[in-house]
């Protein structure tokens, strides 16, 4: 019983970290309809900034997160203006080609600037410790990640379903010309949505760095994981992504615990089963 509970807590923490890192991709793929394979690259840039801010500038963890998110968005905006804007509404495969190109470039440049070694984002003492849950201990960082995940989920849900911005974004994606004629500044809405997704990527990259260490190949290494999680959840659905992360996190954790040598089979067979039952993703909307 204790073991089950213990594994369940591990699953929850892992799922929430997955959610934190990949939710930004759900925004780009689901709401903006851009298959942004460079999502991991932005998460990685965030991680590098945080690592740099803490080790070279001596900033605290909180400040480093803020700086990392801001700096990543600042880097991403020109990319949005000059590259991504060209592929809004383009066929998915064209988007794949472009964003793979962006990813290659970012990997190459990062490797050149920071070298191929692992970078960490050191945790402040409060987060580095662990909490005794009675039957086991759990690192404070994981609790922090769970809390952050919940906050991000709630915040996004409010933003997209309860504010004017969310309505505008939906309107623009559904029919840009119509939205423009209604006075919505479509380019601005797209840029803002892109900035949000990049900011989320950077945040996830920093907080998830304990689990997914920062190195140049980060951008491609975890791409599949992000893609799978978002699609299984149903692109664009915040609750769907959350559900998918928790479910897949649970399946992966349970699989690794019960039969680690068949862990990969577990995970991908589960993905096939889920998608077969929910061909649009768990909470995906019909087209």
């Amino acid at each position, binding site marked *: 019983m204790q073991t089950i509970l213990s594994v369940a807590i591990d699953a929850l923490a892992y799922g929430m970290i997955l959610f934190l890192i990949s939710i930004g991709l759900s925004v780009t793929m689901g709401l903006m309809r851009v298959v942004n394979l460079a999502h991991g690259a932005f998460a990685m840039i965030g991680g590098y900034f945080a690592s740099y801010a803490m080790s070279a500038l001596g900033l605290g963890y909180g400040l480093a997160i803020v700086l990392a998110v801001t700096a990543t968005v600042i880097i991403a905006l020109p990319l949005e203006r000059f590259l991504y804007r060209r592929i809004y509404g383009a066929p998915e495969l064209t988007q794949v080609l472009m964003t793979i190109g962006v990813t290659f470039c970012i990997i190459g440049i990062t490797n050149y600037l920071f*070298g191929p*070694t692992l970078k*960490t984002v050191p945790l402040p003492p409060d987060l580095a410790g662990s909490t005794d849950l009675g039957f086991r201990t*759990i690192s404070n960082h994981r609790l922090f990640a769970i809390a952050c995940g919940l906050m991000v989920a709630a915040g996004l849900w409010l933003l997209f379903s309860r504010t004017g911005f969310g309505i505008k974004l939906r309107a623009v994606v559904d029919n840009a010309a119509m939205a423009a004629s209604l006075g919505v500044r479509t380019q601005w809405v797209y840029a803002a949505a892109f900035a949000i997704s990049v900011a989320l990527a950077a945040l996830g990259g920093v907080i998830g760095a304990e689990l997914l*260490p920062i190195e140049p190949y980060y951008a491609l*290494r*975890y791409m599949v*994981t992000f893609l799978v999680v978002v699609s299984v959840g149903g692109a664009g659905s915040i609750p769907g992504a959350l559900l998918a992360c928790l479910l897949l*996190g649970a399946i992966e*954790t349970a699989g690794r615990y019960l039969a680690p040598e068949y862990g990969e089979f577990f995970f991908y067979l589960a993905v096939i089963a889920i998608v077969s039952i929910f061909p649009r993703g768990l909470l995906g909307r019909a087209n």
Partner: protein
Amino acid sequence: MKRLIASALAALCLCSTAYADTIKVGVIGPFSGPFALQGKNFKAGIDAWFALHGNKVGDDEIQVIYRDVPHADPAQSKALSQELVVKEGVQYLAGYYFTPDAMAATSLLEQANVPMVVMNAASSGIVIKSPYVVRTSFTLWQTASPIGKVVFDAGIKQAVSVVSDYAPGIDADSAFSTAFTEAGGEMLETVRMPLDTNDFSPIMQRIRDSGAQAVFAFLPSGPTALGFVKSFNDSGLKADGVKLFATGDLTQEPDLPALGDATLGMQTTFHYAVSHDSPENKAFVEAASKAIGDPKELSFPAVGAFDGMYVISKMIEATGGTQDAKKAVEAVKGLSWESPRGPVSIAPGTRHITQNIYLREVAKSAVGAYYNKEIQTFANQGDPGLAAIK
């Protein structure tokens, strides 16, 4: 256009090998992609050798040509090796980080009359694929076997092994399990986990369930190793007194700053530590650090490459610069020398390097840098792996 001229020049050079002075060495390694760090170390080791010994053997000048195979890709490796041989006219093939890449190129050697010096790829079987293969790195059987006895001697009777589920991991597991049970210990469990495991907490739970006093682990160096060690600490296993042993892959020097205090006191066995105390190593580390740029990036593939260059230089010496693979390989059989890692020799039968394996402990220096501190030496270890294949 440049390329055309270059290949024309190369062709010219080829024609003039008779009274020639340039001997080309083709090096294949992961110079980009997820293993770029290891490729960089190949280059650093080779550059260090040139810095210390010059690029000439007698009258002959050595020229190294690099080709990139970012991840294990035997088809690509073979195509590039072939290109190096027939187009660039290399007399020696070297490098090879991954076993399948080396395996794929072995089929070329005999017809091409080219020896291969493996600078990393660590599965035992490569050397039997062709009589022209010489290896200056290590095998997992070689590095993982000694620790079995270490663990038993530390008073531990029951252990589990946790390895990545691919050939090197399975080699490491077999080597450790064999050594540990031979010493009298009992293997409680063998956990094989997928290579791309991100979250190791369920694995830690399994270790806890097994009730073992010690864990032997093998993961490829890099992000997963970091995640594993962090998870080991976070799970409280370390606090509960469970000991973690591993091969040196887990604590390769470039990863140590990221691992931080998490690995302090952790014991590993390996063929090379950057901190090895000898004049040869001091000179090597100095030169290789300069070559790689950031000294913190220096790691074990560099020494494999450095010694590989030594072997190649001896081959050139023996053949006087003419292309004669058989003679070259014969010349280095039984060759022994003082490597930066300690005394080494090429076993005549297997053409694999015989070397000391060191038990090391992760320690923190006076200036706060982490390093692998050598605490015990297992002298003149061959490769027990070949026996295991047969």
